[in-house]
């Protein structure tokens, strides 16, 4: 298993390493406590016992002399298992005790010594370690009192070994699992990074991999994918707009250009004036188209100047009605307004008014019954439908055939009938863009006769 540097730099691995260190420290602390309580304390206790025994024999010596010591040592050697004794005279001859000879370590006046001695066990002759106190009495007599510590030493060594093993094992397991977890994590991050590289390289349809477990990486990938969807939508909108601009602005520009060219060639003042006046009109129309395109783009990108705020729908609709009313009457038409009160919506007043105004413009332009001498008969209504607010603009003109209604909402689309009228084919596209921004929609329907356009917007729940 090759561990590369990238793996060691992952946040998962670092986190695992930190936990591992904490874990190792606490395991060591627990084991050190256990070791202290077993090995070290037991050793100290046995030292205390030996010291007490030494004091006891010293008393015997004072009361009864050498004989007292010999008696005590002899009797204790018999009864206590695991204890070692030896009492020798100045020549080193054993007077009492269960050790075969005086340990060579026992030199000097007194002190603690450790030595090994032979012991008969069921398996034969073993050498065991003893810890003892050694002291020299008067006239060269020497006394050694000790305990067989072989088993305790073995226990301590077992504890020490298992301590090291436990620590080592937990480190290995910890590092191992950190590597495995980090690798897994790294593999998924690498997949996401790889996907984003492909997307940056120009493949906008690429998406982040989602593993399906619904964990935090999946949630991240999912929201990145949503972002990418939005970007792709905007990008394709941009592409569409630029191709439309190229197509639909080029022809009026060409017209202006040839007009100016012709006027210059003719050199007559009257031609200059005509060319300039018509050129100015063309340029104004171009600017209107350009601004409408920008407004659509902004609305579709979700930008709004004032932001969406809770507003009273009836106020917005009646303001537009008030602006258009006189014009419709002047054209020998009629505007019939019916507004339901108390409907609250989240809207940008400017944009929503503009959407209604665009529908009114269309109704005035195309809403007259072509056979009658009357002007446009328009009805403007504000109603509710379920949880939606509906703003309806209906006329009694020739309407739009069902098959062309969706097509009519697209940019620069001008249906045959409208080609004779001034306009840029952007009015309904802007309405669609504005509705999108308001989480609403534009519906076009047959008014039998005429067209009915409905702006459907979500209503605000009244907060009682």
């Amino acid at each position, binding site marked *: 298993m090759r561990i590369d540097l990238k793996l060691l730099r992952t946040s998962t691995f670092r986190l695992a390493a930190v936990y591992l260190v904490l874990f190792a420290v606490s395991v060591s602390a627990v084991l050190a406590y256990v070791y202290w309580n077993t090995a070290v304390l037991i050793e100290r206790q046995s030292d205390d016992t030996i010291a007490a025994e030494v004091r006891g024999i010293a008393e015997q010596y004072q009361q009864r002399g050498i004989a007292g010591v010999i008696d005590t040592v002899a009797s204790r050697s018999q009864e206590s298992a695991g204890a070692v004794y030896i009492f020798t005279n100045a020549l080193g001859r054993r007077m009492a005790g269960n050790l075969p000879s005086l340990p060579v370590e026992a030199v000097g006046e007194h002190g603690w010594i450790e030595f090994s001695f032979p012991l008969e066990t069921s398996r034969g002759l073993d050498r065991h370690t003893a810890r003892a106190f050694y002291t020299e009495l008067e006239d060269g007599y020497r006394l050694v009192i000790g305990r067989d510590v072989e088993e305790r030493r073995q226990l301590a060594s077992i504890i020490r070994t298992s301590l090291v093993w436990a620590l080592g094992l937990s480190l290995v397991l910890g590092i191992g699992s950190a590597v495995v977890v980090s690798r897994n994590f790294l593999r998924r991050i690498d997949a996401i990074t790889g996907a984003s590289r492909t997307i940056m390289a120009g493949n906008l349809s690429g998406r982040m991999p989602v593993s399906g477990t619904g964990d935090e990486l999946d949630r991240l990938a999912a929201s990145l994918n949503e972002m990418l969807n939005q970007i792709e939508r905007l990008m394709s909108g941009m592409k569409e707009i630029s191709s439309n601009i190229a197509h639909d602005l080029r022809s009026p520009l060409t017209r202006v250009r040839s007009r100016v060219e012709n006027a210059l060639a003719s050199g007559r003042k009257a031609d200059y004036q005509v060319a300039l006046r018509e050129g100015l009109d063309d340029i104004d129309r171009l600017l209107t188209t350009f601004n409408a395109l920008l407004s659509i783009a902004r609305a579709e990108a979700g930008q709004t100047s004032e932001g969406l705020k809770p507003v009273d729908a009836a106020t917005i609709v009646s303001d537009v009605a008030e602006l258009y009313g006189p014009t419709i009457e002047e054209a020998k038409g009629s505007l019939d307004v019916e507004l339901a009160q108390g409907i609250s919506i989240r809207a940008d007043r400017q944009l929503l008014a503009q959407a209604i*105004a665009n529908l009114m413009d269309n109704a005035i332009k195309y809403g007259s019954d072509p056979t009658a001498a009357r002007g446009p008969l328009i009805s403007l209504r504000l109603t509710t439908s379920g949880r939606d607010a509906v703003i309806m603009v209906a006329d009694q003109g020739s309407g739009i055939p069902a098959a062309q209604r969706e097509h009519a909402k697209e940019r620069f689309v001008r249906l045959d009938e409208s080609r004779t009228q001034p306009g840029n084919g952007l009015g309904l596209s802007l309405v669609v863009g504005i509705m999108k921004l308001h989480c609403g929609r534009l519906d076009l329907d047959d008014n039998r006769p005429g067209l009915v356009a409905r702006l459907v917007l979500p209503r605000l729940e009244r907060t009682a």
Partner: protein
Amino acid sequence: MRVLVVEDDREAATWLAKGLKEAGHIADLTGDGETGLALAREAVHDAIIMDRMLPRMDGLTAIEILRAEGIMTPVLILSALGDVDDKVRGLRSGGDDYLGKPYAFAELLARLEGLHRRRASEPPVTRLKVADLEIDLLARTVHRAGKPILLQPREFKLLEYLMRNAARVVTRTMLLENVWDYHFDPQTNVIDVHISRLRSKIDKDFDKPLLQTVRGAGYSIRAD
């Protein structure tokens, strides 16, 4: 009116100065923000036309500095960034009006003169009078030659705006912005119809028409 024009597009600035001169104003030109600021600090101008994107210092920064120094010369901001957001930012930095490029010169002139007038008439007015036409802003009544004229609320607002800008040209866009508070231009000639209705109420029964159409620009209410 002496106008400081801070605009780095030399050709546009020259045309602007020419137009202002023809309209009877004096124009001082400069092409960069720092010089513009230095000239504006002299406080000898009646109004400033300030482009936004300028070399050395952008227009909004210059306006902010001027306002911080207490120089309150009215500023009309010109910008190729015609977005409503930019407009708000421009006005917030201390500009008094905002016009997106490209603009019709008549529109610019009308706004510039309106700006100057707005500054000049600081004390609140309660009555406005043009020839024999009089309106009372408190009582919300209109009289011409002593005879009362009944107006709808919106017609009253329209007349009030025209009379506050008496003898100056008011464009359709200015009317939409100030009387209806709409920042878009409808495709239909809705403003013209409102004007003609107002005209029929205030001018029809009298010899001398006051509300005049200025071809290619807008409307003007004037005594002459």
